[in-house]
């Protein structure tokens, strides 16, 4: 206690004076004059204490922090001057034309807020009647391709200006013309009267006298003459040549034309290697003409024989198919001709052909039937050898088909290319007569046969100019590139069939207004024309040359507006009677040539796929992703080989995710490529097939380095390019290569998936016949043997409202489906389905909402072997099987297995029969997909719109490509399930339209993307509760539901495939 002394400062402290104690506690002795700053009253009434202060600080800090985390502001700019006709949220449709140089389609373009987002065929077209290929449908994506030229290019110095480019090119062209050399203008097929007129203007600008050397056969100069002609010489070169066919017609009819076929009039069709339902000539027209005669209930059904090397889309639709070697095309035709000649009473020459799948008998059969259908048949040949084509002409003439099914007066203006132009051009360059080359729409460096020497020749030319929309293997070698616009940004006209004029109109302002200029304007500019505006040029050309051909409209403006609105005008006169009278036979020469054709070792047939075509659209990821209808492989080309041959040679026949294909080195035509070998049942033994259009090196990030270029292997003999090559060596390298196939199992395993029968059974047997019923209704038997149709067996009560209002449904006619795949890409585009690329496809993770399954028949089919089932044998397709196609999308089951299992009710049933998917609600358990018997549900495995793995392939990852996205359909995030919605956005739009007009929805008014793309009528959409086409079909005897026995009650049904067979064929 002693140390606890207290010291004090003052007596007041010691005494504990109250006043002292009060002041001692304060820090400042004098009071702080707070009241001077804040009024006394306010200070008193303020109840804020320390704790409240801290609360306010905390709140302010928190609020300020939250305010800083603002969501990104996306500025949308409203129309200051709203264009007339454009309403946000309302689509505008424009009639136009699609022509990529090799195929044509009349189209309708859907634009939303001024940007084209969807293309479908124009059903009102006289030519294509709505027919469109996958390439046509996907072409809208090519518009938004970042790889397109965006400014004029100069070899030295890169980008340049139009003024500089025009000045330099014009000066140099004049120099060339002045030097007496020619300017070679190489184009592909143009088929556009006004473009031809523009070219003519260009040619005329270089008119003048020049000295021309004369050459002997060996190319030695023997003299010179002076002529008055344009320095500009036209060369028409097509990547896929039909030059031989034109040459044959020139010989037989004196006209270098292609005839106009009408397959809808042909009762018997024989095709030798012509894939006329997919890529051959004007397939967009032929396809719906053909399928219009495939209805087994129609007046008659056509009968189709196909003789070919590779299994093609056309071949898989045939009633009778025989595989033959490329070297036997001529012989098969000759034998057919011979058989027919015998019937006609004359004799001909016959040849032996390899008969391992009864080709000889099938030819005899074809001859018999052709003879019976004289004047109503067609024989077509896919070979580019004029001798083959002459025999085909000979047969058609013998059968009297000219004037009935084949029209020579109304010619087809596609594929005008002349293969002699190839050698003429290379010779001209090599002989130093050509001073400049202008490449317009051609890419000879990539697609000319190696044997033509085009690539080496081009490198010698002093001035190379390209007019091109996008870079390719040839434009990158050019001194100048004048960028062209996309066809959706351009005016143009086409006369694809004589007298049928089509128009193309811009549906969007030029995406690169400063950098691109329409090719025709460029040519007019270089011609020094006063008016270089192509629209003015086009209209004045129409006023002068086309308006005058008709008398219906008296004013040009009215004529023009109607034609533009319709996208076409038909001025064909039907008075001209077709003639076969002027036929000059060339059979003896042709047969002599054919007799020299020999089979030699392995043979190679080059072909084009419906997706990639000739390869010019290789940078379009939708087309790369689209699986080939037959092989079901995407993102590659490959060697197709018969599995029987593959087993002999030790190749892997059953490629799958982790079972890569074996690589083989193919040596053909002096050229070598190494490609994977894949099994192609139906391929002729000892032959292989390779698709053209691959191996691009300058196409763009999506198209470069995919597959190998096989153009170089095409043969180049007697002036024509040949796509069948003999004496090929195929050597296994021992290495393997991963293949991305969307389907790895190829047979139906004896199940009723694609229901198929022949016409005899169809006509004579009841569908539910106990023994031979061709479309039995699944029944449930109870213990007493009583049978209840599956349709009446029910675990659940019916969906509420199922019988009220609409019940949307779809019917798919397997007879009308050729498997072309236009619906697949159409669906892809309309529903913003992500592109996932090769590796994901290989992992069975394609995102297609609509797929077309392809099945081969197997020798072990239980229908063939008294119902005995040998499953492991059934897994192997026959060496020469039939193939069938089946489009499968969400079946919109009324008792959907997916709906019951979703824990969060993200997939539900609508009152109108839709099985709906609420993406926002989906948590991604994938249970619905597992429980779907059809496996049509697609899971977003990654964030396809941002994940770097998909940058090269997914167009929605760049600002330009994103413009193709359909604004009506949400882009799905990762981790959610998606699937076919039956284009519910279009259904809603159609219903709204009808409601606004105060009327019920009309049948056919609402189209899904797939049904819109299918001009064959295979896919029909409509209201099952109404008197509609789809309702009629759903109750037809051919109708069946896929996996009906599972009891899912789908709203999608299929019509049994009926082949035109008697059931007793060899």
């Amino acid at each position, binding site marked *: 206690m002693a140390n606890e002394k207290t010291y004090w400062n003052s007596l007041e402290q010691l005494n504990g004076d109250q006043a002292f104690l009060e002041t001692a506690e304060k820090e400042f002795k004098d009071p702080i004059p707070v009241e001077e700053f804040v009024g006394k009253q306010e200070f008193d009434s303020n109840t804020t204490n320390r704790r409240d202060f801290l609360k306010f600080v905390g709140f302010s800090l928190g609020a300020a922090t939250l305010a800083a985390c603002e969501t990104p502001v996306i500025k949308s700019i409203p129309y200051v001057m709203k264009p007339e006709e454009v309403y946000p949220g309302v689509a505008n449709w424009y009639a136009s034309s699609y022509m990529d140089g090799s195929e044509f389609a009349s189209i309708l373009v859907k634009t939303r807020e001024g940007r084209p987002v969807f293309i479908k065929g124009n059903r009102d077209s006289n030519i294509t009647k709505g027919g469109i290929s996958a390439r046509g449908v996907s072409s809208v994506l090519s518009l938004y391709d970042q790889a397109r030229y965006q400014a004029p290019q100069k070899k030295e110095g890169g980008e340049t200006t139009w003024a500089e480019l025009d000045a330099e090119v014009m000066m140099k062209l004049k120099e060339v013309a002045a030097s007496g050399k020619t300017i070679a203008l190489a184009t592909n097929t143009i088929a556009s009267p006004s473009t031809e007129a523009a070219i003519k203007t260009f040619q005329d600008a270089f008119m003048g006298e020049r000295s021309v050397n004369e050459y002997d056969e060996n190319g030695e100069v023997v003299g010179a003459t002076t002529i008055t002609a344009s320095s500009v010489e036209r060369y028409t070169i097509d990547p896929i040549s039909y030059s031989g066919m034109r040459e044959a017609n020139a010989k037989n009819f004196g006209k270098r034309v292609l005839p106009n076929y009408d397959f809808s009039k042909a009762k018997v069709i024989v095709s030798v290697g012509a894939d006329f339902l997919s890529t051959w000539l004007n397939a967009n027209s032929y396809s719906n003409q053909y399928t219009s005669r495939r209805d087994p209930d129609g007046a008659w059904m056509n009968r189709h024989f196909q003789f070919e090397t590779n299994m093609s889309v056309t071949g898989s639709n045939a009633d009778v198919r025989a595989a033959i070697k490329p070297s036997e095309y001529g012989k098969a035709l000759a034998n057919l001709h011979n058989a027919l000649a015998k019937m006609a009473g004359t004799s001909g020459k016959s040849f032996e052909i390899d008969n391992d799948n009864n080709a000889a008998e099938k030819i005899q059969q074809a001859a018999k039937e052709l003879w019976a259908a004289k004047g109503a048949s067609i024989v077509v040949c896919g070979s580019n050898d004029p001798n083959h084509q002459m025999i085909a002409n000979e047969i058609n003439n013998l059968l009297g088909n000219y004037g009935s099914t084949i029209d020579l007066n109304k010619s087809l203006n596609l594929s005008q290319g002349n293969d002699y132009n190839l050698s003429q051009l290379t010779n001209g360059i090599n002989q130093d007569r050509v001073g400049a080359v202008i490449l317009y729409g051609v890419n000879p460096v990539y697609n000319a046969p190696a044997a033509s020497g085009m690539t080496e020749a081009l490198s010698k030319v002093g001035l190379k100019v390209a007019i091109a929309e996008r870079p390719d293997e040839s434009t990158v070698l050019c001194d100048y590139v004048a960028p062209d616009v996309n066809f959706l940004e351009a005016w143009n006209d086409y006369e694809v069939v004589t007298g049928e004029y089509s128009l193309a109109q811009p549906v969007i302002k030029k995406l690169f207004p400063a950098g691109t200029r329409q090719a025709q304007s460029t040519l007019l500019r270089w011609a020094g024309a006063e008016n270089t505006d192509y629209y003015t040029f086009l209209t004045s050309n129409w006023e002068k040359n086309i308006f005058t051909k008709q008398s219906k409209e008296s004013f040009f403006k009215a004529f023009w507006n109607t034609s533009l609105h319709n996208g076409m005008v038909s001025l064909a006169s039907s008075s001209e009677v077709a003639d076969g009278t002027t036929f000059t036979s060339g059979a003896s020469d042709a047969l002599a040539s054919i007799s020299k054709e020999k089979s030699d070792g392995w043979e190679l047939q080059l072909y084009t796929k419906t997706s990639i075509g000739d390869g010019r659209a290789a940078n379009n990821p939708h087309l790369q992703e689209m699986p080939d209808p037959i092989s079901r492989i995407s993102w590659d080309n490959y060697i197709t080989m018969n599995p029987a041959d593959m087993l002999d040679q030790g190749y892997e026949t059953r490629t799958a995710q982790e079972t890569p294909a074996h690589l083989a080195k193919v040596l053909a035509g002096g050229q070598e490529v190494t490609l994977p070998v894949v099994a192609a049942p139906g391929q002729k033994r000892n032959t292989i097939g390779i698709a053209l259009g691959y191996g691009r090196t300058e196409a763009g990030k999506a198209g470069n380095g995919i597959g190998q270029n096989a153009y170089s292997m095409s043969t180049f003999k007697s002036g024509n390019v040949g796509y069948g090559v003999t004496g090929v060596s195929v050597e296994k390298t021992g290495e393997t290569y991963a293949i991305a196939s969307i389907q790895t199992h190829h047979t139906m395993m004896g199940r009723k998936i694609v229901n198929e029968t022949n016409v005899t059974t169809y006509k004579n047997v009841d569908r539910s016949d106990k023994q031979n019923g061709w479309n039995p209704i699944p029944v449930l038997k109870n213990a007493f043997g009583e049978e209840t149709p599956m349709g009446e067996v029910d675990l659940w009560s019916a969906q509420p409202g199922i019988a009220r209002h609409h019940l949307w449904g779809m019917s798919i006619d397997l007879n009308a489906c050729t498997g072309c795949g236009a619906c697949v890409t159409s669906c892809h585009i309309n529903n913003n389905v992500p592109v996932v690329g090769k590796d*994901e496809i290989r992992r069975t993770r394609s995102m297609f909402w609509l797929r077309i399954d392809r099945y081969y028949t197997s020798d072990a089919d239980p229908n063939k072997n008294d119902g005995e089932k040998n499953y492991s044998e059934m897994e192997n397709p026959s060496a020469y099987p039939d193939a069938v196609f089946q489009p499968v999308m969400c079946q919109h089951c009324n008792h959907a297995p997916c709906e019951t299992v979703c824990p969060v009710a993200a997939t539900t049933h609508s009152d109108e029969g839709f099985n709906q998917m609420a993406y926002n609600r989906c948590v991604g358990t*994938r249970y619905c997909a597992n429980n779907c018997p*059809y496996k049509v549900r697609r899971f977003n495995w990654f964030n396809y719109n941002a994940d770097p793995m998909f940058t090269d392939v997914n167009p929605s990852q760049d600002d330009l490509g994103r413009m193709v996205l359909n604004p009506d359909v949400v882009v799905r995030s990762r981790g959610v399930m998606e699937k076919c919605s039956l284009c519910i956005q279009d259904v809603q739009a159609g219903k709204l339209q009808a409601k606004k007009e105060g009327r019920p929805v009309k049948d056919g008014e609402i189209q899904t993307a797939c049904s819109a793309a299918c001009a064959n009528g295979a896919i029909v959409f409509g209201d099952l509760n109404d008197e509609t086409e789809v309702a009629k079909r759903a109750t037809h005897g051919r109708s069946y539901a896929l996996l009906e026995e599972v009891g899912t009650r789908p709203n999608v049904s299929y019509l049994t495939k009926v082949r035109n067979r008697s059931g007793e064929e060899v």
Partner: protein
Amino acid sequence: MHSEAAIRKPLILGDKDYHQITEDVCAPVEGKANRLWYIAFSIALIVALWGIGCILYTIGRGIGVWGLNTTVGWAWDITNFVWWVGIGHAGTLISAVLLLFRQRWRMAINRSAEAMTIFAVMMAALFPGIHMGRIWMAYWVLPVPNTFGSLWVNFNSPLLWDVFAISTYFSVSLVFWYIGLIPDFATIRDRSQKALPKFIYSTLSFGWTGNVKAWIRFEEVSLVLAGLATPLVFSVHSIVSMDFATSVIPGWHTTIFPPYFVAGAIFSGFAMVQTLLLMVRKVVSLEAYITRKHIEYMNIVIVITGSMVGIAYLSELFISWYSGVEYEQYAFLNRATGPYFWAYWAMMTCNVVTPQLFWFAKIRKSFVMSFILSLFVNTGMWFERFVIIVTSLHRDYIPANWSMFHPTFVDIGIFIGTIGIFFVLFLLYARVFPVLALNELKSILKISGENFKKQQH
């Protein structure tokens, strides 16, 4: 009153007295871990971290990093889920069902079996979460009030039943386990010298006093919880099986699934208990408590449930043939002879053939053989789920969709990773929890201990 014949082998060997039991059980908690523990823990931790890395990668990138595809939408994820749930069955069965049946031998093993259950169910619960495409929306599967309008969960969905079944099972198992732990925690608390452990264990023991009243209540609660837990043993796996049984996929759509899955779960649970206990009794020196007798009893359960599973397999085959359904017949033929035949025969061998060796007493009583065969069963049961899930999906109705499943390193990483996490938890448990129900054990020392029996005779 319970009494035992003198010739019956005692349940606790080694002349233990009450104190010795306390010492034995508390030793790992109070002492320092041995080297073996550290090695095991390090390995488990590394594997666990690898697994966690794979899980985070999946969540960051998308389910696409797994080997799943459009046809096979579930594979290792749900296989692992069902496997872990199955393993999580034995604990509750041992503690609840055997309690009701008064099988006192369970007392030596129930604590660890229950711990295993808890950890296994935790591992199982991980998979339905991470297999979701959008795990951040996982709470949507719970019927919680929400701002989405009247949006509710889909009570038709077996996955939702799963959520309820698993969460109920987990909660009840956890409570049951914890109640049992309270007196033992109190024992450790009372023995603790240091402040921190004392604080922790006194918190954990909820102020247990150990008076008679408390013990009476303890017994009553145990009985009530056992009664509650028993139906859960059967319900959980029945409901898990309904994920498959209520679907339309051939090979899944099978009415036999609920009993078959429950038998399989008990089978695999006991096998896992066997595997763990055979290790634990060595590592933590509990040979006196976990005796040959326990191992033998569990082997008997294994051979019985294994035979039930075998019968189920054969019934499935018979029914698929008898059904006359094309798809059903093919599904089972494909299992046995298709591309995944190896998985099927691995399952058949490990689950049906090898457990039959337990009919031989010598094998049944052998520690080494029991350990090896328990590993076989663990493997076989994993394959069983793989066979059910993958081979049914990969070739279902439409042949054009048929495909194969190929796991990626992430699939494998996550599976191995969960084994790592499981062992990390189990090893930590073995260090800080009383691994035997020491207070309960003392109750059988009186009647079934060696000393007691000697005194009696």
